[in-house]
């Protein structure tokens, strides 16, 4: 029994059907962790992108080193670091929060690049036209650059959301009961890993195929030139 659901070992099919609700509770956690991690990555990535673009090397250079460091070290180790080291300094986050934070930090290094690429893809000629019209730098950024960068940024971000989802199982090592961990526990208890783990594979395949199709659809819906304001 797990989460109040019994399983039925009478036949492989009955077993698979009986553990599906259990796995789906895990899937909910997976999606929650991915969503929260993605939100962190979106915000933190923007911070990195802005810091890296600051003209002063005293700010941009450390930001570059830090993001490179984040990008070049394994999520698993970063997760362990946050989970075991932060409490030594009095910061105790629940496992789920720590996991989402780790996902967010790891992916912020990637989303920062997406922001940078999206903003840089809006050519200098647009900045110059805005300047010639005496638009203020702030207005140029919010009303000229950003609306044109968004359609380039959104699909790339969508792809990272799919990637984050695939990294959520790593959170199982810090007791987060996402779908893989749930399947593993079912396996530990029934000594049958084949069915639960294969089901997790299948669930993931469906999830990512659907999500990727969604991203492609979104991409085709977005106007190519920019998001018209109003």
């Amino acid at each position, binding site marked *: 029994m797990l989460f109040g659901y019994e399983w039925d070992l009478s036949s492989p099919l009955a077993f698979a059907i009986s553990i599906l609700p259990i796995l789906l509770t895990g899937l909910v956690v997976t999606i929650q962790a991915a969503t929260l991690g993605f939100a962190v990555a979106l915000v933190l990535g923007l911070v990195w992108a802005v810091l890296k673009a600051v003209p002063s090397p005293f700010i941009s250079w450390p930001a570059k080193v830090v993001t490179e460091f984040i990008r070049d070290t394994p999520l698993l180790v970063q997760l362990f670091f946050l989970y075991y080291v932060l409490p030594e300094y009095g910061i105790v986050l629940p496992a789920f929060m720590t996991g989402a934070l780790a996902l967010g930090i790891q992916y912020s290094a990637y989303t920062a690049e997406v922001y940078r690429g999206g903003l840089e893809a809006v050519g200098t*000629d*647009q900045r*110059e*036209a805005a*300047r*010639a*019209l*005496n*638009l*203020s730098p702030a*207005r140029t950024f919010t*009303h*000229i650059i950003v*609306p*044109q960068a968004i359609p380039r940024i959104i699909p790339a971000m969508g792809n990272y959301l799919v990637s984050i989802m695939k990294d959520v199982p790593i959170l199982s090592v810090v007791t987060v009961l996402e779908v893989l961990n749930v399947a593993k526990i079912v396996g530990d208890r029934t000594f049958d890993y084949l069915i639960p783990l294969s089901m997790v594979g299948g669930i993931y395949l469906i999830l990512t195929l659907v999500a990727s199709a969604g991203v492609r659809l979104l991409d085709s819906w977005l*106007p190519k*030139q*920019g*998001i*018209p*304001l109003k």
Partner: protein
Amino acid sequence: MTQDIIHFDKVVKRFGDLTVLNNLDFSVKRGEKVSIIGPSGSGKSTVLRILMTLEGIEGGKVTVDDEPLWHEQAADGTLKAASEAHLRKMRAKLGMVFQHFNLFPHMSVMRNITEAPVKVLGLSKAEARQRGEELLDLVGLADQAQKYPGQLSGGQKQRVGIARALAMRPSILLFDEPTSALDPELVGEVLNVIGKLADEHDLTMLLVTHEMRFAREISDRVCFFDRGKIREEGTPEELFTDPSEERTREFLSAVLDG
């Protein structure tokens, strides 16, 4: 107040090791229409971009309307590098039409024209819209106000570019090869609009172009640029029919044949 609305005094402009303008002296009178011609890389665009404050200068002084452009008077009377506020004030005197139009692709034609007047000049939306309609009428696009730039032909785009620059009521209008990115059959409509402007307004116009026939028609004066200097200047007749410099002759024979 002198007659000159634009004055370059020994202006030096470098890109890294490359000196693009080398002690350039150059001036334009109020209301004058001046064409700049010359080989590629001779610094023609650079002159316009310095005026539009898109590029800084390394030496000398530029004056617009008797005020230094890239400098301002410090409290103690000496000149110091211009502040952004000073540049904003000066920039209001100038408008620019770009080679590649540089319209905002995410805004409708009308929004392209009204955005800056509303946000920068503080016009009401209604005023800006009315002025926009007049200008679109002027450039012959009254019926295209609600389209997006992506839906227009090159010639139409450039005419929107001209309307957008005019909407800011500049006293000087800069054109950087306004027709060279257009298909040949679209060049005429844009030149027509520019010609109309030249005839009907007392705007000061500074025009970089490769359209020799057109330069000849509309200009009060033509300047031949070569390697960051004015090699020769004069009325269109003088320059086109009887250039005094060998270099000018060479250039003209090459472009008029081509």
